[in-house]
């Protein structure tokens, strides 16, 4: 019973961090019609900046600066894609692979084989109640992710910016005819994606994870199945998919012994297993509309 509750909690905490990543991923996909393979490297950049800045700026200051810088980097990638968009649907996506390799190589060179501490205030502390023990960092990540996602959803639903984002995703030309400024909206989507990736980096590397290393960005690859499971391009789908993937991963890790006949390391492939199973049953994803690709 305690294992169940603990596993459930871990899954939700993990899923909430994936939600921050896949939300950015989805926004960028809607805004630029590209699958952003550079998302992982942007996340790594955010985490790396917190790691090098927290000793001088303190953790909150470092997080603010890192989030802003990652947002800026993401906007720059978005601008690069703009030029490539006229060249056909696949070109921008391929361009993000190039950006990913460049950014990752540079960051990996700087990080080397180190495991960097991000100086987060939760450290290795745990909280326990009713016999269940959980890392404080995971409680924080759950709370932060819920607040950020709620703030985003409220803005998306109720503000002028959110309305502009929704109409721009619905019909770009009609939105332009209403005076929506497509360029600014696209930039704002990339900025938000960068910001959320930096925050996600902090929670991904916090306890019980040892810290940030060069492979941290690869975790973003798990948010990819999360976004696809939900239905690429659907905000609600990205959130549902993230929770599903987080839970699948936590359960296959938490019940490793019972699942051992299937081999060890199941938790690493669980997100992809979920993706394949969902896509076989529902190719458009859980909440995705059957979308013919729009040019």
């Amino acid at each position, binding site marked *: 019973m305690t294992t169940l509750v603990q596993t459930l909690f871990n899954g939700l905490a993990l899923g909430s961090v994936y939600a921050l990543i896949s939300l950015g991923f989805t926004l960028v996909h809607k805004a630029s019609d590209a699958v952003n393979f550079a998302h992982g490297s942007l996340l790594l950049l955010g985490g790396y900046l917190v790691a090098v800045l927290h000793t001088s700026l303190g953790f909150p200051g470092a997080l603010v600066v890192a989030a802003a810088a990652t947002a800026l980097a993401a906007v720059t990638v978005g601008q690069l894609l703009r030029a490539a968009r*006229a060249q056909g649907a696949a070109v921008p996506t391929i361009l993000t692979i190039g950006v990913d390799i460049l950014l990752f190589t540079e960051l990996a060179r700087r990080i080397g084989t180190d495991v960097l501490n991000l100086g987060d205030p939760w450290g290795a502390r745990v909280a326990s109640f009713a016999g269940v023990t959980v890392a404080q960092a995971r409680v924080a990540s759950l709370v932060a992710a819920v607040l950020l996602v709620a703030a985003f959803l409220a803005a998306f639903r109720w503000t*002028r910016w959110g*309305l*502009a984002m*929704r*109409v721009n995703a*619905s*019909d*770009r*030309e*009609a*939105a*332009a*005819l*209403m*005076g*929506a*400024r497509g360029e600014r909206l696209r930039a704002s989507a990339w900025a938000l994606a960068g910001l959320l990736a930096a925050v996600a980096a902090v929670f991904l590397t916090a306890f019980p994870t040892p810290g940030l290393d060069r492979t941290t960005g690869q975790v973003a690859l798990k948010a990819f199945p999360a976004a696809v499971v939900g239905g690429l391009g659907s905000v609600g789908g990205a959130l549902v998919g993230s929770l599903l993937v987080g839970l699948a991963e936590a359960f296959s890790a938490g019940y490793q012994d019972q699942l051992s006949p299937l081999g060890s390391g199941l938790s690493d492939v669980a997100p992809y297993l979920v993706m394949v199973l969902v896509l076989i049953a529902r190719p458009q994803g859980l909440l995705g*509309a059957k979308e013919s690709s729009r040019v």
Partner: protein
Amino acid sequence: MPQPPPAPARAETREALDVNQLTVAYGRSVRALHEVSLRVPAGGIVALLGANGAGKSTLLRAVSGTLPLHQGAVVSGSVGFGSADLTGRSAAQVVAAGVVQVPEGRRVFAELSVEDNLRAGRLGLVRRGRAEARATLDEVYALFPVLAERRRQTAGLMSGGEQQMLAMGRALMARPRLLLLDEPTLGLAPLMVERISETVQEIRRRGTGVLLVEQNAALALELADHAYVLEVGAVRLSGPAAELAASDEVRRLYLGEQGDEPGTEDVPASVPALGRWQR
């Protein structure tokens, strides 16, 4: 001294649209308009007629600043609205200048509610007052009561005629001084065509000019003061609507009437006949 009554908000500026020697190309080679000149007097209704592919939508795109979305560009010539030069301006700048286009095929935001579609009509305004937004919304609902009844409904689930009303209402939310309508009656039942045509007249009565692109030439010539006929990217005919409606050439080519003597059948093969001329 008694205060004069406040002037109605929409009547204060009287601007004419001036399209001057406009040449437009798509990509490097497709020339869709060639030195087209056209004028919509302030508060007037002008009809733009022409067969499929004549360049009617291209002209509207050139005015509304949406050519770049189609890889098109103004090669030469100019577009002016009052004292503002709209040539090569962005779509947002054109909306801010008071010119709003209702696109061909309605293009409502299908997954959004009716009311969100209408709210989107104000996205281009720089000066935004809540009170004015509310008042404009009420005006649009008064003009199209069916939109008020369906305000929470998903726009994509409405009928074609209702979507056309929504597309027009959405454009009116910006309080334009000139409305560009691209084939508003396309595919609509006669009753709905009648409804749209009444609305166009009502819009003009409220001081907004209309540039009306129509394949339904009979309807357009009845509504408009002035009309232009485009043919393969150039103005072939223009004049007062009543005169054009009476001219043999227009009657034959666009109103579906045969010439009196069979022997004078000199319609060039390149001019396709238009469907749906009947009202």
